[in-house]
């Protein structure tokens, strides 16, 4: 109560001040969007498509929609390009690729992507910082990499973990049949919950105070429940339950870098891009070499992850590249409470053929995967685990019982009397809907920080000296003001992508090269086609690179210098050959 009044007064005072100082252009931070979207709920694949269409229709200048392919079941893979055409085509700018929901159950990833499109479009022309960002870079958004899995998760009974896979029928238990033993919703609550056998020798029991909690029987006490797994029956009569449900592969193990076959990396498929979804995304990314940053949202855990996925690939993250990831990852920790910046194989587990691993290690794109949502955000004391009782309080008192189905007894065809019940598919991994908007916004903020640090080049200084009657020395400084270099050290070492190119047009160039700084005397000179200087190392993050040309020309000759990099906007400058120095402000 107290706080609210104070805030009201503050706001009023602020508004009053603003009224005196300048006309109010808009209510701060409360920009309306042309498309009304509630961020306190989730959207299935069809609803997601509606939101996408509405946004694209409402902001046609900034947004372009294309379907880059079809999923296994024929759903469109929606790709939304966000770019201001007034400042250039998307392909001429560094672009960030943002997607989510490759695992069909990791649903909030899609809302996080949609939120970014929604927030950016309504901010353009209204919020200076974001307007400047949108004018400078391009975005490629793919809200769901697995629309089939998403549709399945929403439409049918599932757990928080199921429908992770694509929906192509697969023989998971090697019995020659496809998807023949899925789980069943035996208690009809619309979810796949847990199943316990009522067993006089069981090790588990219902908690005496709250029978909804099933716990290990304490020592000396006889339990009466045995865990059976998820609810379901033995459809194929092989003695196992639910061992071969729909799909059964992991599209986040289907990418080309360090791809390993199924028996080494479960779910990898038979070869990279053997799913239509991954193939469509791969084709798109390979056709857009201007992609300089990547994010693929997942759940859960509260992590900002980068590769490598396996220890033996540590060498693919040389020092200078690690520094780039560290700067961005650490900034993320500040923006996302309880999230940790982590290295996949070292801090989590080994992943072969992961998506951001391919982006980073295969293509030289600085990429992260954010694992959205961590329980720490709702724990009374985040420094220790939730107790079962505290968890029940949360779900009773905050969620009003909506994520739990109480246990009921049933007769199972092969297991006799069983208890079925437990947490619904919303009970873990998925951000509680009422907390969704904040989570979307914070991740959006991190991702915009990441995007905003894609390379940006500018000519900083040019010095011209006349060495002889027609021999001139031109020294040029080019600055990259952002964290991400135009080429990762990895890219240089492994010959990924194309080197940057600095060309001098005008008089004949005798030799050229990179130099340490404008005061240096010696150059690592190139004498073959020196007017066309290839720079494999690119220009580092937040640094200045200096180049020198020796040309044969006359005073007043026109010189044009052009710098082109795959992952930065091209820059060009024209000047007259004349001794002197020029500072170039931006």
């Amino acid at each position, binding site marked *: 109560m107290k706080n609210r009044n104070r805030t009201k007064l503050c706001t009023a005072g602020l508004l009053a001040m603003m009224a005196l100082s300048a006309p109010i252009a808009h209510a701060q931070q409360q920009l309306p969007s042309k498309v009304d979207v509630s961020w306190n709920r989730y959207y299935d694949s069809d609803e997601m498509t509606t939101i996408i269409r509405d946004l694209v229709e409402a902001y046609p200048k900034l947004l372009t929609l294309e379907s880059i392919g079809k999923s296994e079941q024929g759903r469109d893979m929606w790709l939304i390009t966000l770019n201001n055409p007034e400042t250039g085509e998307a392909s001429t700018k560094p672009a960030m690729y943002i997607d989510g929901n490759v695992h069909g159950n990791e649903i909030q990833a899609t809302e996080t992507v949609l939120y970014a499109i929604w927030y950016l479009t309504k901010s353009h022309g209204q919020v200076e910082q974001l307007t400047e960002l949108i004018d400078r870079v391009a975005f490629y958004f793919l809200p769901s990499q697995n629309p089939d899995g998403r549709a399945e998760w929403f439409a049918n009974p599932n757990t928080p973990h199921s429908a992770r896979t694509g929906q192509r029928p697969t023989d998971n238990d090697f019995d020659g049949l496809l998807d023949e033993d899925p789980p069943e919703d035996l208690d009809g609550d619309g979810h796949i919950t847990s199943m316990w056998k009522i067993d006089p020798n069981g090790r588990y029991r219902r908690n005496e105070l709250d029978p909804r909690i099933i716990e290990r029987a304490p020592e000396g006490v006889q339990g009466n429940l045995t865990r059976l797994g998820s609810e379901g029956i033995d459809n194929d009569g092989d003695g196992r339950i639910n061992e071969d449900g729909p799909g059964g592969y992991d599209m986040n193990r289907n990418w080309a870098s360090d791809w390993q076959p199924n028996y080494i990396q479960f779910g990898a498929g038979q070869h990279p891009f053997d799913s239509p979804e991954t193939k469509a995304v791969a084709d798109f990314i390979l056709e857009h070499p201007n992609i300089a940053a990547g994010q693929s949202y997942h759940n859960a855990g509260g992590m900002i992850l980068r590769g490598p996925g396996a220890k033996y690939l540590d060498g693919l993250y040389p020092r200078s590249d690690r520094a780039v990831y560290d700067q961005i990852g650490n900034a993320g920790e500040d923006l996302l409470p309880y999230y940790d910046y982590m290295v996949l194989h070292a801090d989590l587990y080994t992943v072969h053929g992961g998506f951001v691993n391919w982006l980073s290690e295969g293509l030289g794109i600085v990429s992260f995967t954010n694992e959205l949502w961590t329980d720490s955000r709702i724990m009374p004391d985040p420094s220790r685990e939730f107790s079962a009782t505290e968890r029940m309080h949360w779900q009773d008192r905050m969620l009003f019982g909506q994520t739990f189905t109480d246990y009921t007894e049933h007769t199972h065809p092969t297991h006799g009397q069983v208890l079925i019940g437990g947490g619904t598919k919303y009970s873990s991994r998925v951000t509680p809907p009422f907390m969704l908007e904040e989570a979307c916004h914070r991740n959006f903020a991190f991702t915009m920080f990441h995007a905003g640090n894609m390379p940006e080049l500018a000519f900083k200084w040019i010095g011209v000296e006349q060495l002889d009657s027609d021999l001139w020395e031109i020294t040029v400084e080019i600055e990259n003001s952002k964290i991400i270099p135009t080429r990762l050290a990895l890219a240089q070492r492994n010959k990924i992508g194309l080197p940057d190119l600095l060309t001098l047009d005008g008089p004949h160039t005798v030799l050229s090269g990179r130099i340490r700084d404008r005061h240096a005397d010696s150059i690592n000179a190139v*004498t073959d086609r020196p007017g066309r200087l290839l720079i494999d190392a690119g220009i580092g993050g937040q640094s200045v690179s200096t180049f020198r040309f020796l040309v044969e020309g006359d005073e007043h000759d026109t010189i044009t210098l052009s710098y082109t990099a795959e992952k930065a906007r091209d820059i060009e400058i024209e000047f007259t050959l004349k001794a002197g120095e020029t500072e170039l402000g931006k």
Partner: protein
Amino acid sequence: MTPIRTAGAGLLLSLALAGTAVTQSQAHTQSQSQPQAGYLTNQALSDAANDLDASSTHAWLSTIGSSLAGQPIHLITLGSSKGTASDHPAMLITAGIDGRQLASTETAMRIAQRIVESHTDLLDEMTIYIVPRLNPDGAARNLKPLTMGDPGNTRPVDDDRDRLLNEDAPDDLNNDGYITTMRRLNPPIDDMPTHLADPDDPRLNIEPDTNSKDGEAQHASFTIYPEGIDNDGDGQINEDGFGSVDLDQNFMHRWPEHATHAGRYPLSEPEAHAIAQFVLENDHIVMALTLGRHDNLVNLPQSGAKDISGAAPKEIDAKDSELYKHASELFKETVGYKEAPKHDTAGSFHAWLYAQRGIPSFAANAWARPELESKDETNEAETSTESTDAPAEDVVTTDSELTPSSVGDISMETLEELMDAYEAFTGEPVDQTMMGMITPDMVEQYAAQAGIEIRRVTPQAEPKADQPKSDKPQSDGKPKKKKLSDDAKWLAYFEQAGITGFVDWQPYDHPTLGEVEIGGFVPLAKINPPSSELDPIADKMTAFVVDLIDARPQLSIVGPEIKQLADGLYEVRVSIVNEGAMPTTTAYSQSKRTIRPIVLRLSTPVDQIIKGQRVSRIWGIAPDGGRSDHHWIFRTSSDEDITDITIEINDPRFGNHSITLSQPSAEDQS
């Protein structure tokens, strides 16, 4: 963001210098002095394949896909009758993956012809799939006289990464009808000489032996280039020709991700994708023979070593050594090649079949240089396999490569270790300006202090082939028997056989390199024999294929043995036995469960089974009487007769069978 420009002008220039191209309407290449003379063009191959289909009731032609330039990739199916191909286990013979390996295609076609001529009985037991030329575009390029000998397809690749495509192709400067090599005599200081003429045969280039104990150490005196000019003025010659992806580096097992010619991702090339799809769709393939540049029959593949992940074998698993030894013996008896060059198998087709598809996968060169006649010491000489031709691109793998730095020969990896140590010690990162001034001596000093091992990048990453040591001391006064290098043996062979495999060095005044000599080995001459050799080769290879087929896994069902233990209580035993000389799948795939098993399914419901499983999986059965035994005890329900019960065997390789349990005879009842 500038898109890559194809330097059309440069390409036209090089074509103008190239001379007349062979017209495609000719069925066979004309010039007899070319190694490709008498070899099948794509059109001729199509014709031959169509003829086979038309003339035989055991052969059918289809395609598995198209090449990048739209050529059909032919599949010849040999079987007992049309439409029954999938009813039998199959052998896959693949050739022409490497565009230079023209003899492999010829051999594969001839094998097909010989099988339908004389071995149709085998087709009652086994289907044979033959893909004679996986890389029609690469073959077409190599069938032209002015071939540089490139293994790949026609995917544009910016080899030198200068943002121009295919702008510096080879040129036949001296118009001798071959693209050979150039020796730059007296190279200037910026072009360090690397080779010298072999004192024993000045036609050959050798690297200097600086450790020569008797006499003076040798010094290099020339640099070697492919024949051509620097079309794009970048200081290099012929570094970006027609571009290509080497299909035999485009498959999943140990795919060399960042190698220049391995493709953008595994199966990025339509040719590779087509055959991979074919293999995946035809899981009744139980053995494979790939003819091309790889070999695992003359030289046994490395067994036991693992790849970088530690989870897959580099070449083969130790448990499969016996299988490969056996195949190697069959190969020796029929084909009898004594030597085969060794190439890294990373990303290769045959290695993928073994490591990830569980298929016993054999690889052989179609042709090996015959032994030289007479000349006592030449036959016994240990051959150095090091050749000074432009080698097939050495595949770069991440597990052993060091990166050069700007500090002498110190590797970047070592520098980074030092920087990390500095940071750990001082708590501050290294000043980059300081790093710019560091010298190798300083590195050595700091490394010694920090206890860090210095890893250097050596200019030649490969060790020189060991010079064979002379066995005896030179006290007996006899002239030292010099062992011939591999190249010398090639020269001797070309002479004996009357083949133009080598062009003698001719002086030439090069526009940028100055005084050069043009000459050297003719591309493809070491790979493809004169066409007159192809029939004898095919006879031997066919005999080998027949032997492999005879050794195929052969399954039989033993039983069912039924015992009635009590009323409605039965014990059943069934075994599946492999009488063949080869296992049903590789031992490796058996242990790792890499591909689908044979599935046995009992029709009795689970709750009536007392011993055994309703669904059993057989991951593999060993050869020579290896068996998979199955034992069940079950009850029948009151209205069920034991003859109602079946055991279903589900297996794409050996076919599906249904075993009915007949009534046990009186003696079986206990």
